[in-house]
Every structure is written in structure tokens, then in C-alpha cells.
């Protein structure tokens, strides 16, 4: 199916349209934000806790920094991280998953064992442990969240590859003595891609929220850089003085996750109609 046809079918239902609109709004906000607002780190003590107005569309925070600029920067940061994490973990995950399904029972047992170990920890706890070990910073963050998400993609790819294994076209390739690496690359991977793309799009909001939670707890982005999590936390601390800051960042987080979720669901209904209803 062409990408245009996919888009058309997503737009044909209400949830898909809503998801697309929300996602576009967030993207535009992330891109256009810095053009219409001052430097996100520009401190203006005189304008502390300014309410929304002509000068500051979303008001300012406890140091008088413009909230449009800060929220937009946070959104950009969250989106970039999420995209990077989802792309890396889906590619690596599907490769490992397919290998597990194809390479024989011994390797399969090792790989699924590792998946089980990673999954046995609640993601946040695992994140704390890894951050304690390797320190804070965006690269550690990307690596660790990627590791946390790989098993999900790996499991799905493994399950799909296992059901492909007994299909005639894979057996025909084997009977032709085509090299196993070629079979994996050319015949397994393209055929597990559909559900993986869907899972990736559904994980996008999860990663955005995960990043926000870690930053909220102080393990993510470090000041003065802004992230949706730190913005909510700062807003939360100063909620007695002003309730603007927390609203702006929360709203962006809500729209971003809701939009990406709706879009992911719609994408799943289009690409993978068979699994509708089951996660």
C-alpha cells in the first residue's frame, strides 16, 4: 500500500483525523515556537510569573523566562529524543527478534531470556539504576530507554517471524539454498515491518511521557535546558504563585501523547487490520 493511500485511509475516520491534527499542531509548535518567541533561557526578573499576554503568549516562569519558548524547546527535545529512541530500538529489536526466531532453539532461548530479564524490571526503576551507574545526560538517556524498549519490538518481530517461518515462500527460499542472511534481510524483515511500524508509532507517546517523568523526577534534562518534565516540575513547585506554567507544559504533553496515540491506533487499523482489538 502506498503511503498516500495509508494517509487517506487514516483521514477517513474521526480518531485518525484527530490524531493527525494533534500531531501536526505539536510539530508546528515545536518548529515555529522559537521563531515567534525570545531565547528560552533569557531571564527577565521584572516579568516573573507574568500571565499570558501580548509580550508572552503563555506567560513566564519564576525567572521571567518566556514559556512559549521554553515549552517549544522542551517539545522539540522530547520529540527528537523519542524519534531517535523509537527508531533505534525498533530496528535493533526487529533484527534481534528475527534472529531469535530463525537461528535455532539455543540462540532463541538466550535472546528471550535477556528480554525477560530486561522486562522483569519496572522501566522507571531500571532507568534509575542505570542512571546511577552511568550518570545523567542525553546520550545515557537515549541508550537506556532504547534498551528498555528493545524487548517489546524484539518479541513482536520474533512472533511474526515464527509464523512466517512455516510459510511456503520462506521454505521455498530455504530449498533454493539462499544464504540465511539474505533470507532474513530480504524476506523476513520486510514482512515483519508492518506491525513493527505500528508498534513504533504507538510507543512514541510512551517514550515522550517516559522522558517527561524522568525529567520531572530530576533524572532527565538538567537545568537550564527545558524539557516538558522539568517545566511541569517547576510549575508544580511554584503553583502557589502562578498556575500558568504548569498548564502550558501539561497541555502540550497531553496533546502530544494523545495525538500520537490516536495516530498510532489509526495506523494499526490501516496496516494491520487483523490484530485490531488486541494489543
Amino acid at each position, binding site marked *: 500500500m502506498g503511503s498516500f493511500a495509508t494517509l487517506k485511509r487514516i483521514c477517513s475516520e474521526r480518531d485518525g483525523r484527530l490524531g493527525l491534527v494533534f500531531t501536526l499542531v505539536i510539530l508546528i509548535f515545536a518548529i515555529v515556537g522559537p521563531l515567534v518567541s525570545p531565547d528560552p533561557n533569557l531571564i527577565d526578573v521584572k516579568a516573573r510569573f507574568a500571565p499570558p499576554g501580548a509580550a508572552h503568549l503563555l506567560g513566564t516562569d519564576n525567572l521571567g523566562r518566556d514559556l512559549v519558548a521554553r515549552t517549544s524547546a522542551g517539545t522539540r527535545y522530547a520529540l527528537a529524543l523519542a524519534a531517535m529512541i523509537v527508531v533505534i530500538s525498533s530496528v535493533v529489536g526487529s533484527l534481534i527478534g528475527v534472529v531469535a526466531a530463525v537461528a535455532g532453539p539455543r540462540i532463541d532461548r538466550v535472546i528471550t531470556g535477556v528480554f525477560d530479564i530486561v522486562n522483569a524490571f519496572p522501566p522507571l526503576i531500571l532507568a534509575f539504576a542505570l542512571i546511577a551507574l552511568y550518570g545523567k545526560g542525553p546520550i545515557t538517556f537515549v541508550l537506556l530507554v532504547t534498551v528498555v524498549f528493545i524487548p517489546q519490538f524484539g518479541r513482536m518481530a520474533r512472533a511474526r517471524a515464527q509464523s512466517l517461518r512455516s510459510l511456503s*515462500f*520462506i521454505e*521455498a*527460499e*530455504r530449498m533454493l*539454498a539462499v544464504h540465511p542472511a539474505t533470507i532474513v534481510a530480504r524476506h523476513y524483515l*520486510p514482512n515483519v515491518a508492518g506491525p513493527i511500524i505500528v508498534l513504533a508509532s504507538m510507543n512514541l507517546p510512551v517514550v515522550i511521557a517516559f522522558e517527561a517523568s524522568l525529567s520531572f523526577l530530576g533524572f532527565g534534562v538538567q537545568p537550564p535546558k527545558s524539557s516538558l518534565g522539568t517545566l511541569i516540575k517547576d510549575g508544580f513547585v511554584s503553583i502557589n504563585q502562578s498556575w500558568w506554567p504548569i498548564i502550558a507544559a501539561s497541555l502540550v504533553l497531553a496533546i502530544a501523547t494523545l495525538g500520537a496515540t490516536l495516530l498510532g491506533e489509526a495506523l494499526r487499523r490501516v496496516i494491520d487490520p487483523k490484530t485490531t482489538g488486541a494489543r
Partner: protein
Amino acid sequence: MMDAISISKARLRFGQTIALDDVSLAIPQGTCFGIVGESGSGKTTLMRAILGLQKLDQGDVCILGMPLSHSRAALKKRARVLQPIFQDPAASLSPRSRIRTLMGEVATVLNEPLAVTYERLGVILNRLGLPKGILDKYPHEISGGQARRVAIARALLMKPSILIADEPTAGLDVSVQGDLLNLLQDIRQLENMTLVVISHNLAVVRLIAENAVVMRAGKAVESGDVASMFQSPRDAYTRELLSAWPRLRVE
């Protein structure tokens, strides 16, 4: 002359069910051999064992005198001798690869210059009545009949001496099934191949095969040359199969 395929004392169980029960048979080179049976008779399992897709609990399979091994080197050797034509040939073409890519894989496997492979392919396509333009298409863009021929063309490109066709007429209308059967017969004669046909269609096997085996519940209940087997079946089950076959009665 050495047998194309010989199986001795093949046994296989899946849990409680016995899939193959002491099956022995020999398929002479250059002949057409039928494996007949109803669903669950073990005929497909037998085929998979011959192809090396299913390991046996006991017993041996020899292809042209070589014992079947699962090593990669043996698989590469076997692929040049033995090729399957699967039941649903459209499903035996990888859905996200162009047919040209699929054919190109043969060149890699045979370690042959691509130009040489394509030259041979041109001859094969011509014989199967397939247009050259089909190479640029994806499997879902061609008709079922064409997909069938493409799958056969790809098997032939390997220059095998044994072809194994699994239920070649399944799902085909009577008015078109003959086309495929005639084609398989022609190929066999022209290339002097061994053809193994797995089928539940007794009438087809009777006409196409010289020798056949009747399978039931994992056992080879009767085997021998087709003419005498169908004329005077020795086994009670073979007789039952033959009498149950609907006849075109003209009074």
C-alpha cells in the same frame, strides 16, 4: 541405475500421532511417481522429509544415493538436484520482492553470472508462456495462474533433476488444471527429470504416474506400478478409495 529418491524405514511421531510408520519406497530416475492419500495420511510429511524440511525420528532418505544431511553444504548441493513446487505457488513467492529479485537469487546460489542466468530464464519464460515484463512485477500484481508458472520457472532455473509437486491441482478448476499437468509432463520428458506428484486426486495420478504409493495413517499401504494397482488393487483401503471416487456414469 541409482534411484532418484529412496526412503528406508522412515518413522516419525508428533506427540501421540504417528505421522510416518515404517515407510520405505524407491523412486527410479526419470519416472513420474505418485504419492496418494487423504488428509492426515502422511503424504505431505513424507514430502517434507524428502525435502529435508522435516527430520525423521528413524530411517533414511537418500537423494541420488546421497544420504540426506541438514548441513548447509549438503543443502546447497541438494538444491541443484531437487526442487519443490508448493501447493499454493502464489504463496511460495516472497510478497515484498520483485520477481526479478527472486530470479536473481538463483544466480547467486549457483554462483553464475547474472547475464547467463537471465539468458536461461528467457528460454524458460518463453516455454512457460510468460511475458518478460512479469519480472518487474510483485507477486500480488500477477494472476494466480501466472504465479504458478513463475514458481515453476524459478524451480527450473536451478536445473534440478527431480521436481516434487505438492497437490498441483488443488484449488484449480477442471478446465485449467490440465494445463499445468500437461506442462509438468512436457518438462519431465524434455529434461528427462524425475517427477514426484503428491495428490489426493486418484484419477490424475493414474494418468500421470508410472508408479505410486497409497498412504494411510502414516503407512504405505500399497505401492507398485499404477496400471496394475488401479486395475486390481490388493489392499482394502485402495479399493475403498477407488470405489468412493465419483464416476461420470453414462447409462
